[in-house]
């Protein structure tokens, strides 16, 4: 069982919402679609579900072409960012609804609804209406409805985005457990890189209607094949700079120069793009190849045990994510250390230089 998009394209009027996309998702896998708002995550999910028809290309499921098959016949389920439930039905009937439509005997419905409600801690709410529940419980109800029918494809479109912090953490921890012993394909859309890392599995980075890259989450994070992919998969945003290689040194404008590591020695001299994740730019010396840069502080955000320092370096704006509280004054000079051993190098086309 697998879901395969072959050259799938979606155009609305003159606008292209999804550029030709090829994607293959395996049974039992957890896949994250990672991208900013308007990157095309929702459209891609609607295409996968069969709620929208691709303008071009084919969608194959389990070895069959399902491009023209109506969503009702596809055995998918979907949870939205908004808490979508049937307002006139009780929580029990909401969860039971896909089973009722499918004509499941009511004894079986009762049993399955109760077991899924137990799993999602909804048992005391079964006789209430969705409007009488908290946001978290409403989303659990939607989740329960998506899980009860044992769909082959479960689409979760930013299901945690509208929840407040505590509830989000709670539900986020439960999610992997919910899918642990199912062999459905799970697709999870999010704007937050940290969620993709938390769930593991596979991740597809999306940018302006294109799937930039798809692969195992860890690999994709450590070695993004593409600079756009690296930008999508980094929060705070990855620091970018134009650098050049001159003999045995990399040169970053007047600010910094550092020796070329052995694995990059065969690169031709010329211009490259440097990518450094914010947590490799720190106030204290760290890593194997710390290089000093001086910047002017624009703003510092404190988040408990960490400081996010936005600073300018020439014309560039960089971000440092450092341990400890560093309350720099706006406009003050700051000395920071960039661990170049962790840096990513991209060629003129934005492709990662493999090493």
């Amino acid at each position, binding site marked *: 069982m697998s879901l395969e998009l072959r050259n799938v394209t979606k155009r609305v009027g003159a606008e292209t919402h999804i550029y030709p996309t090829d994607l293959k998702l395996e049974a039992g896998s957890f896949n994250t679609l990672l991208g900013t708002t308007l990157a095309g995550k929702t459209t891609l999910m609607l295409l996968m*579900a069969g*709620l929208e028809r691709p303008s071009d290309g084919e969608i194959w499921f389990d070895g069959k072409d399902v491009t023209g098959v109506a969503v*009702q016949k596809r055995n998918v389920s979907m949870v939205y960012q908004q808490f*979508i439930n049937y*307002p006139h039905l009780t929580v029990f009937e909401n969860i039971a609804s896909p089973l009722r*439509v*499918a004509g499941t005997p009511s004894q079986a419905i009762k049993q399955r609804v109760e077991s899924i409600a137990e799993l999602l801690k909804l048992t005391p709410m079964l006789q209430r209406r969705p409007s009488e529940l908290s946001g978290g419980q409403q989303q659990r109800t*939607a989740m329960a*409805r998506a899980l009860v*029918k044992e769909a082959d494809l479960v689409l979760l479109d930013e299901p945690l985005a509208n929840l407040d912090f505590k509830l989000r953490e709670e539900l986020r921890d439960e999610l992997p457990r919910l899918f642990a012993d199912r062999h459905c394909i799970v697709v999870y859309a999010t704007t937050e890189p940290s969620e993709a890392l938390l769930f593991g599995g596979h991740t597809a980075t999306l940018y302006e209607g294109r799937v930039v890259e798809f692969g195992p989450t860890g690999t994709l994070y450590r070695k993004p094949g593409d600079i756009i992919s690296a930008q999508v998969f980094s929060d705070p945003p990855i620091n970018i700079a134009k650098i050049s290689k001159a003999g045995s040194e990399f040169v970053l404008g007047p600010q910094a120069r550092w020796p070329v590591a052995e694995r990059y020695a065969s690169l031709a001299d010329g211009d490259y793009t440097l990518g450094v994740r914010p947590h490799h730019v720190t106030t204290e010396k760290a890593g194997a190849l710390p290089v000093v840069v001086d910047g002017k502080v624009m703003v510092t955000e404190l988040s408990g045990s960490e400081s996010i320092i936005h600073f300018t370096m020439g014309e560039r704006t960089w971000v440092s994510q450092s341990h400890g509280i560093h309350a720099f004054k706006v406009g003050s000079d700051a000395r920071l250390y960039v661990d170049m051993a962790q840096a990513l190098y991209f060629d003129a086309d934005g492709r990662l230089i493999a090493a």
Partner: protein
Amino acid sequence: MRRVTWLVPTLYIIFLMLPIYWLLNMSFKTTNEILGSFTLWPQNFTVENYVKIFTDPTWYMGYVNSLIYVSFNTVLSVAVALPAAYAFSRYRFTGDKHLFFWLLTNRMAPPAVFALPFFQLYSAINLFDTHIAVALAHTLFNIPLAVWILEGFMSGVPKELDETAYVDGYSFPRFFVKIFIPTIAAGIGVAAFFCFMFSWVELLLAKTLTSVEAKPIAATMTRTASTAGYELGLLAAAGTLTIIPGAFVIYFVRNYIAKGFALGRV
């Protein structure tokens, strides 16, 4: 200051209720008392007027006729407006906004404009003096109104609800009846209420398109004098009875109407 806060609302309510009180007052008087003296409450209390209305077919059939065409019109208007409003709220098509506006413009002309063409038209196809004629004529005003109200309520329902239902396996008709209509029940209530009200109070078209068989109560009431001379008490009783259905319907939809106001429609 505190002592006079009751004053304004009280005055307001008195002014509002005065005509209704006077109608009620008159309906329990004899015509002689109404014409002969000025009394704040009936001196010779009588229910004769009401008895007359409930026993004389030329009177009570007016109510029956009105209720028949009003109910028919309400059902027809809402039934036609539901799919139209769904289309307007869910789909984008060429000229959708113009079409929506054009529908509303049908409400902008006074009914008198349509009296002559309708009279001719319905006479030509033998629908003159039938309940259907009045019900159909009133849809000209009520369908646009119902579409407008329902579109507002429907647009308040996220399209993700539709999609969730399809994902759950509902076909479109089943979703529409089982999920969507219950979800916008309040809107249907409000739309039905306004259709009912407009059709109930509209006099000109109803009067023009009927003579005997489908004559509405409002037309009967304009018959101020009969062989027995002026019958003001009787007319007042008929007026009182005409208010009741409206008040009754308002009572049931009052909460929904508040909701409709909140959604920016109504």
